[in-house]
């Protein structure tokens, strides 16, 4: 549906040229919710604006629904933009127009008659749950309601694509949830392709099918949300995920020296990641039964779900003879669980602190 080929964007700024995007390649399939995550200044807002040519790329091609956007004339481009809805962080509603007129705005631009506008706007008001607010002005609405108006307005032209530029960043967590649920809902109902720009991993986790992590104008990592979440490769990705899924050691071990060699009175800490149907396999119980002489202490555990796929993360501490520990590691290596060896760490004595 959307194909970005070799997108470059260079800005002239007083302090010299700024290379905002450096050869972005991205393909987004029809009906997908594609997340683009990055820190501020990473280039994600520029990238999403290249899709509807609010920013013209310095080089590269933008293919939307088979059409190369970079070669269109101004009037062809205006026509093409009507099939790409966009919502914004600060909603960008007309303060001088009512909710109804804001949603009708794109239709009025196309010269649609009042009766046809009414036929279009009423169901949209219904869809976003604002039928009773039709005659109010944006200043009388809450942030979440304003974004609902923004969504209805973006849908008025029956677009094939919805671009969401930090659409929930100005909203509180609860409102964010409801707006994301609405986006997901319209994605399903209207089989709309959705591009979500955000700096919040929670947004990606909640609604996206795929994600691209953008950093310094390049895509650092991409893939299905499940893959990227359970097996992040790039440091920046790990950092984004760590906001949701803490990588810290349990309090009793935090800050203590981690050694790859055995030290007296220490535990060998392992991080175990269970995925999918295996998340509820009794792997640890089997290990304890199979490997005599190894003690296993559960130090941290968390069971989450990404798009319905169970996803468990545990930290366990092993103690016992070297041979027994090696035996246990070998056993785990043969099971369907990902094992990451953290190292030998001493447990702080909470009594003396």
């Amino acid at each position: 549906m959307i194909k970005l080929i070799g997108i470059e964007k260079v800005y002239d700024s007083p302090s010299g040229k700024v290379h905002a995007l450096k050869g972005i390649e991205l393909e987004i399939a029809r009906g997908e919710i594609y997340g683009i995550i990055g820190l501020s200044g990473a280039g994600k807002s520029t990238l999403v604006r290249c899709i509807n040519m609010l920013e013209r790329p310095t080089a590269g091609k933008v293919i939307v629904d088979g059409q190369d956007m970079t070669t269109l004339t101004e009037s062809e481009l205006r026509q093409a933009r009507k099939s790409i809805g966009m919502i914004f962080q600060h909603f960008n509603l007309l303060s001088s127009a009512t909710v109804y007129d804001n949603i009708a705005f794109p239709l009025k631009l196309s010269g649609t008659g009042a009766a046809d506008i009414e036929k279009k706007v009423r169901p949209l008001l219904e869809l976003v749950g604002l039928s009773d607010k039709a005659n109010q002005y944006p200043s009388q609405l809450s942030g979440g309601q304003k974004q609902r108006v923004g969504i209805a307005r973006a849908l008025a032209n029956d677009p094939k694509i919805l671009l969401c530029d930090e659409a929930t960043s100005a909203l509180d967590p609860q409102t964010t949830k409801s707006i994301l649920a609405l986006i997901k809902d319209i994605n399903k109902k209207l089989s709309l392709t959705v591009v979500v720009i955000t700096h919040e991993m929670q947004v990606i986790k909640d609604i996206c099918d795929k994600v691209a992590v953008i950093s310094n104008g390049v895509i650092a990592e991409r893939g299905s949300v499940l893959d990227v979440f359970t097996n992040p490769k790039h440091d920046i990705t790990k950092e984004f995920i760590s906001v949701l899924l803490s990588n810290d050691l349990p309090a009793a071990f935090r800050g203590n020296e981690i050694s790859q060699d055995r030290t007296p009175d220490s535990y060998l800490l392992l991080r175990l990641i269970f995925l999918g149907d295996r998340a509820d396999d009794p792997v640890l119980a089997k290990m304890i039964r199979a490997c005599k002489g190894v003690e296993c202490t559960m130090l941290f555990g968390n069971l989450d779900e990404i798009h319905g796929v169970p996803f468990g993360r545990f930290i366990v501490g092993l103690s016992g003879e070297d041979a027994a520990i090696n035996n246990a590691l070998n056993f785990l290596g043969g099971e369907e669980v990902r094992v990451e060896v953290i190292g030998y760490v001493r447990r702080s004595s909470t009594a003396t602190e």
Partner: protein
Amino acid sequence: MFAEVLPLLSKALGETVYMVVVSMVIASAIGVPLGVLLHTTAKGQILENIFINQTVGSFVNAIRSIPFIILMVAIIPLTRFLVGSAIGTTAAIVPLVIASIPFIGRQVETSLKEVPAGLVEAAQSMGATPFQIISRVLLPEAMPGIVSQLTTVIIALVGESAMAGAIGGGGLGDLAIRYGYQRFRPEVMLATVVVLIVLVQLVQFIGNTIAKRLDKR
């Protein structure tokens, strides 16, 4: 005494209102589009054109830097060409219009600058043409500000029209000078000042009321 001053006063008020209203209508018809031009051709705006922007901008600044009394005399040939005479109430309208156009232009430009750039971007994302952005986004959104600014221009016009007496334009200012000052009639002076104060208050009140009603922010 009062019976004698009243006809003078009402005639002068009529002349002032005539000069202000006609000047305001003509000057707005040119000044508002000028303000739109100044705003939309500026850097980063929808019709960015630095050459036009700077040329028009310097022209506007040049006219605005001429004191009204001098402008009035300096353009006498133009006035004579346009209205056939360089003296009288209608002749005074020409310099009033010329002085007000750049004033309105700058005021409208200031109001348009207040419209958040995001709104323009949103309209562009919906495929709006530059003309639609101006007529359906910029002007409606800036309207409360523009009304307030135009109110200021009207009040400035009331003041400038007082100088129109210098070219036989008549009006309240002229009455105050000729009767109140030159003929030593302080009561005429006082009456004129009271009428001017009431007039300005009224204009400001109406302007504020309209601006407030338009403002949905």
